[in-house]
């Protein structure tokens, strides 16, 4: 395999702006970036409970993200800034029920499901 000859020097600002980019409003049909890059790795894979299509309240989602919930880790503003959190919470809250999401939502609650008591 011929290695790429280009030496890549990344302008330091490019990735520093990643947090800001997260805040951008996605088009209605498009997957929220924070959801795609963080939440979905558990909540779309059956590791955490499905959260799409359940009309979960925005304030509830924001609270769980910042405090964590049982096995779910908390996320700081340096990871998901306030604008990105508001965006993903709104997107999750308003997401339509898909067949996959509603199937897992009605599956027996795992011990990590938010129906169980809070810490």
């Amino acid at each position: 395999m011929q290695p790429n000859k280009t030496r890549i020097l990344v302008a330091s600002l490019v990735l520093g702006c990643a947090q800001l980019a997260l805040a951008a409003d996605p088009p209605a049909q498009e997957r929220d970036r924070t959801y795609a890059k963080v939440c979905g790795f558990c909540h779309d894979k059956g590791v955490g409970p499905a959260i799409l299509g359940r009309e979960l309240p925005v304030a509830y989602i924001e609270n769980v993200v910042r405090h964590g919930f049982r096995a779910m880790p908390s996320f700081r503003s340096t990871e998901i800034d306030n604008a990105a959190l508001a965006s993903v919470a709104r997107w999750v809250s308003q997401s339509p029920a898909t067949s996959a999401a509603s199937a897992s939502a009605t599956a027996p609650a795992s011990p990590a499901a938010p129906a169980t008591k809070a810490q």
Partner: protein
Amino acid sequence: MTTTPRNVLPKGVSASDFEQALTQIRAIVGAEYVVAEDTALAPYNKIMMAVPDEQHAPSAAVMPDSVEQIQAIMKVLNQHRIPVYPISTGKNLGYGSAAPVERGQLVMDLRRMNRILDVDAELCTALVEPGVTYQQLYDYLQEKKLPLWFSCPAPSVIAGPLGNMVDRGVGYTPYGEHFLFSSGMEVVLADGEVLRTGMGSMPGSNTWQVFKWGYGPTLDGIFTQSNYGIVTKMGMWLMPAPPDYRPFLIQYPEDTDITKIVDALRPLRIAMVIPNAVVIAHTLWEAPCTKVNRADYHPGPGAISDEAVQKIRKDHNLGAWNVYAALYGTPETNAANWKIIEQVAAATGGTLITDSTEQGGRATQYRFDLMKGKPNLGEFDLYNWRGGGGSMWFAPVSQAKGSETLKQMRMAKDILAKYGFDYVGEFIVGWRDMHHVIDLLYDRSDAEQMKKAHACFDELLQSFAREGYGVYRANTAFAEKVAATYGPVKRDVERRLKRALDPNNIIAPGRCGISI
């Protein structure tokens, strides 16, 4: 800025001094990047350890975005003698997460410093900041179409290479011993001086990321699992994507099979026929990640029975031990080495599985992804086993010898069962050692289980130490006790270094048991 009295202050610091320091720090980083209210600090205090949250509550958090800001902050902290706890991605879950080692320490959150500063595609190296996550690095390499792989630990999507290396974490590719595959650090010392290790010390050098040692003592090691400085940059080696990748799983039916597995695989690992960190996962590590529901097999309290574990194996086609490894090379070299793998599997009575989707399950899929450095969070399924968000890794080091591994497994299983906990363990094969990683899973919302988990961890630690087995890493609540198992001379040297490098004892005092 707030007028409400503070609940949490750094040890020995008055409220007015602390306020004054925060005002100075706000002037350095901007007011929005300093938080000191309970609500805003909540994410820094979510822990999985079996101690009350309050024991690890931060007094405040500061989020600098540059080395210069960190240098300026260190001046303020020295002036007021305020202890600071630096974190990178803060996702060292089960080892302490983003919470400080001691109550009241000011968290320095470096997650905003998330620049991938350099990727050299010819030399296969990278230079990254503390806030870079594995997922970010993965996306970067994909976008640039660079055929380069890295090794990552299980929480790879949200964790990052610098913090993991500094804690001497491990992963699953041939570059799995992460500190071994780092090259060069930049460190802000307590007095604000900036040290670049190895070749990085030399003005104009371009070999920082390719030659680790430099001239004179190699200092990198003292900045891992320690509190002698704040690591702000790390060089790491990347692996050329192999033309042919062949992951596999070998399942074994009996607990006692671990002896022949280890003795058969060790020569292949040492000779690098198998170049990656082989994982030997027990049934109860595979079961949660295969979506087995514990309550279906053990509805009552206490540890799961051996009979129930047998039934899980049968019902879900899991081995007592499940060996994950891979071949990395050209189709020709892998074809040749594959014959050896087949022979070893046949000779030891293992069942060889190569297709993750056909024969293996979801556990196999996330393992096959991890062995090529593809980030995922599949292993978080472990947390559903008991539920309740309690997890502490007990991770003693073992020789890569079969008799040793079986002895450790039995010791751990007996102690865990005594407190009502299951043996959820795996061995990660280094070159000559094994990291015996056990997840002590418990329900953190159950006060009784919290108490038992704490006592259980303590007994595991002391019992293993009596047999001469030390852990490679530990959660912050047990830092002092773990450090004590390594004897007094090492600790004395560490304290002397601390006095020399950080005379005001401001960087994470208590981290790994090091303090003045």
